């Protein structure tokens, strides 16, 4: 799989050269800035705050990068005509999409790990206890990020960067509130038609709230048995489905 690797390396290199390192530095500066006001709190409060804020920051910056970079991935290649020298080479269109996806995913894995290291070091420095569940928290955030990449790539195969960015961001926000939405909806009575409609959206929208385990990380509470496995499988299945749709669209696309 020489040629997929070539696309992966190239995409990853572009993402890293462009802005990835700035994001990490930006994160570090904010974290340091905030630490200067933490002096008057108890150790428990500080640790909770750093974990909460740190993980939220990793997720937000990761998702932002996923959307900002992901929207351009296919569209810009066509718009800037760089694709005209790539597709005529012996690479399948689905390989190109997969390479793009993996390249960006690896770049953002790099970013997520760097930021997680920053957070962990920070916890060590302020003297808070670090529990291994924070790694699981990092993994779940990474799942959210690559799920977002796949959704963004899907949209970018047929719409402009601004639109696909909007779509992907909207889906991210709705997906995040699906958990709360469910609680809300369970309190009102619905006709069977309404119920069906809601179930439909429930199935097609990605359930990001399943992947949000920040609370458990902060309080170091164990996840219910099988929960992690189920969530990971769910995320991977959803991601594969998005990539499949993206390739089906891209396969037929006229490149001019």
């Amino acid at each position, binding site marked *: 799989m*020489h040629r997929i690797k070539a696309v992966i390396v190239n995409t990853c290199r*572009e993402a890293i050269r462009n802005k990835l390192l700035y994001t990490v530095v930006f994160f570090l500066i904010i974290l340091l800035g905030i630490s200067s006001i933490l002096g008057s709190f108890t150790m428990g409060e500080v640790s909770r705050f750093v974990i909460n804020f740190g993980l939220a920051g990793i997720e937000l910056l990761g998702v932002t990068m996923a959307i900002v970079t992901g929207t351009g991935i296919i569209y810009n290649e066509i718009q800037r005509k760089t694709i*005209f020298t790539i597709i005529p080479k*012996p690479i399948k269109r689905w390989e190109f999409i997969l390479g793009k996806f993996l390249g960006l995913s690896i770049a953002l894995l790099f970013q997520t790990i760097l930021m997680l290291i920053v957070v962990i070091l920070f916890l060590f420095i302020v003297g808070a206890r670090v529990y291994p569940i924070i790694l699981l928290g990092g993994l779940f955030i990474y799942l959210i990020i690559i799920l977002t990449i796949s959704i963004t790539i899907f949209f970018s195969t047929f719409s402009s960067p601004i639109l696909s960015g909007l779509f992907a961001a909207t889906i991210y926000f709705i997906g995040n509130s699906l958990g709360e939405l469910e609680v809300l909806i369970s309190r009102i009575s619905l006709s069977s038609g309404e119920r069906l409609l809601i179930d439909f959206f429930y199935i097609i929208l990605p359930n990001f709230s399943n992947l949000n385990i920040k609370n458990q990380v902060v309080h170091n509470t164990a996840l219910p048995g099988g929960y992690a496995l189920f969530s990971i499988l769910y995320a991977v299945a959803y991601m594969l489905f998005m990539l499949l749709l993206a390739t089906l669209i891209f396969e037929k696309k006229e490149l001019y």
Partner: protein
Amino acid sequence: MIIEVKNVEKSYPTGHIVRKKITALRGVTFSVKEGETFGLLGHNGAGKTTLLKLLTGLIHPDSGEVSIFGESPSSLRAKQKIGFLPENPYFYTYLTPREILTFYGELFSISGKDIQNRVEDILKTVNLSSWADIPIKKFSKGMIQRVGVAQALINDPELLILDEPMTGLDPVGRKELKEIILSLKEHGKTIIFSSHILSDVEMICDRVAILIKGKIVEEGDIESLTAKHSTGYEIEIPKKYLKWVEQQNLHFKHQTNSLLLEFSTREEADKFLKELLREDIEILSFCPRRILLEDLFMEGYRRYAQD
């Protein structure tokens, strides 16, 4: 046959609300044999780029068939043997020629050491060795065109598809590219390229097709195409003899610094040549008419472009 195009039609959708269509190709049929150099001539908007994009699998015909090496243009086996230079090529600007050529080489699954050697050779061929490690965003148009030529050659292709390869190149660059194409031709490669510069086509091609408004209106080898239409001879003399020329019963054309006397047969021209010598009139040149392809092109354009 290396390339076979049968009855291909292609249109582009336009308009967002009201869907309209721009027809780019209207039933194009032609084929290219192994080792042939085929020129695709056409005015702006004739459909040259559309046709070449169909050959590379970037777009698909609305109807009709396209096959390359007997396979679909999207098949990897066909693509493995093709080098394609798009019109005004664009590259990842953050990469250097060495990096981008290595990337393209990897798409052909050429590995490690071989790529490096190949890239080195190609950079030399297109005269970019001293720019090999400078990001492409700092390149001029002609230099980018050279990168384009280089990437089309990276896999030592059997078939080269070049969309207006001469654009953006200075006279030196053009000459170099012509030499590259001629040497590829000597090595038995099949080449198809588009152009609206007639002299380029005349100099390099075995066979041409003239594309006008999405239709091939003439096709064949240059000699037989031009022989089919009237040929002739031209004598060029300085402008100062205008008075004298006007007294003769002659066809002639004004040029910026000279007069062009036109003859339809060699005998007539010879006869008049003697006359000129007798009158001690200075002769600037005497040659068979060389603008025939251009005439053909213009004639085709006049005939078919109206409807």
